[in-house]
């Protein structure tokens, strides 16, 4: 029996509840396999994102804290 035939047989044997669960598992596995790379924002968050891009200096103190730490890796 080919993999495709085995899958068809398996799907035929699933109850509705099991099929629903299987879809959740597949969706979860897919998200693990390929992390979502598109982020969709509503108007409020989109505006906030644009404001952040236009005010980069506000992010610099935290980044300096990161850059100024003593290193562990490769040391």
């Amino acid at each position: 029996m080919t993999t495709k035939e085995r899958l068809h047989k398996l799907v035929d044997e699933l109850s509705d509840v099991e099929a629903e669960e299987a879809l959740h598992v597949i969706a979860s596995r897919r998200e693990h396999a390929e992390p979502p790379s598109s982020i969709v924002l509503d108007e409020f968050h989109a505006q906030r994102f644009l404001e952040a891009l236009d005010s980069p200096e506000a992010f610099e103190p935290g980044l300096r804290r990161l850059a100024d730490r003593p290193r562990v890796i490769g040391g």
Partner: protein
Amino acid sequence: MSALHATEPLDRRRHQTAGFTCGRPPLDAWLQRYAGQGQRRDTARTFVTARPDGTVAGYYTLVAGQVEHQDATPDVSAGAAQRFPIPICLIARLAVAETEQGRGIGADLLLDALRRILAASQLVGIRAAVVHAIDDDAARFYARFGFAPLAEAPRTLMVPLHAVRTVLAP
């Protein structure tokens, strides 16, 4: 504790991932089952720091992405929506083995990720580095180093590339 090698691309022939446990099973599963697939399919790049015996002590994964406005359409001509989509680089995963936690390795990995994103931004347009924090503790970790919330679900935080360049560029 042994020294950790500088980060390098995940290489299944040299890096041991089977026993990697960071306390968050989805991040373990990603490294052990999917990170290699991402490399082969050119959908994600995973970088690891390993002990001298090749055991992975921590890793992060970078993915190209974009931020979209829910109302943006090809013919949109006004308002904030016209400035979207915006290209970003997503730090899609970042994890440190439980046995190595508390040493500052996570912060080193984050800094390393930002340096690589900065280098990539010389070749392709990237306006921000974005992270999906797996939980509130992770979100606080990123916030400590300047990342600001972008969206609540999932917990998403960002820093503008301009700020990264100002602080990290030689």
